[in-house]
């Protein structure tokens, strides 16, 4: 079975080539967790939970001492 195609570019030489991956490159691709999964939509159940809202009053850290 043929391996996926990769494009490689070397910033020093400026050479770009497109070729079949080496076995090492293909193993690394698989190890990276590469998937053909389609990014799905998110739902409200994925909401970032916030403690309070930006409009909530900032709670006091403590009450001021009464003048004696």
């Amino acid at each position, binding site marked *: 079975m043929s391996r*996926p*195609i*990769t*494009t*490689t*570019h*070397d*910033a*020093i030489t*400026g050479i*770009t080539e*497109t070729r079949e*991956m080496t076995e090492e*490159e293909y193993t*690394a*691709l698989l*190890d*990276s*967790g*590469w*998937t*053909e*999964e*389609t*990014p799905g*939509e*998110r*739902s*409200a159940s*994925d*909401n*970032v939970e916030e403690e309070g809202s930006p409009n909530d009053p900032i709670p006091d850290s403590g009450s001021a001492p009464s003048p004696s």
Partner: protein
Amino acid sequence: MAVKTFTQAEKLTAADTNTYLANGGLVYITSATATSGTTLAIANCFSSTYENYRIIVSDLRLSGAAFVDFYFTGTTTNYAFGRVEVPYNTATALGRGGSGTGLGGAWNFLVGSTTSNGGAMDLFGPNLARQTSFIAIAADPRTGGSFGTEFGGGIQTDSTQFTGFTLSAGATITNLNCTVYGYRKA
């Protein structure tokens, strides 16, 4: 010395031009385009010349909707990331996901599809012998549903001095432009 103040009628030499004028704050390093296949790997783009880098992906088009991941070439362990999405159709941020409770094999950079989009990543210290981190922003190219703009960031916990990276797509690449810039040091 990073800056020189020139005086009226001062002669502008080639040396001064190259030192003070030719290199702005963000310095072009290299760029490459993939028009087929699964990955684009750029080698020898990180060095001791810069500490921090900016990576721009533009006109990303794939055969179908898929993630585009980032990993330092040859290293596929000890990555962690998290992303938040703000959908185009609401103002409510949605937790998009991340690497979970454990360290994974790559960072998720952006989503590609058949229509064009792009993204930007700031990379902190990839060529230093310490943990590397990143922040990224990208727009999902799809409309409808809850697709929107995504903000993310993460770390790679090794102390490896990386010199290059690979972008991998979960669908066949139709086009992927990638440009690497370095943030000039003083």
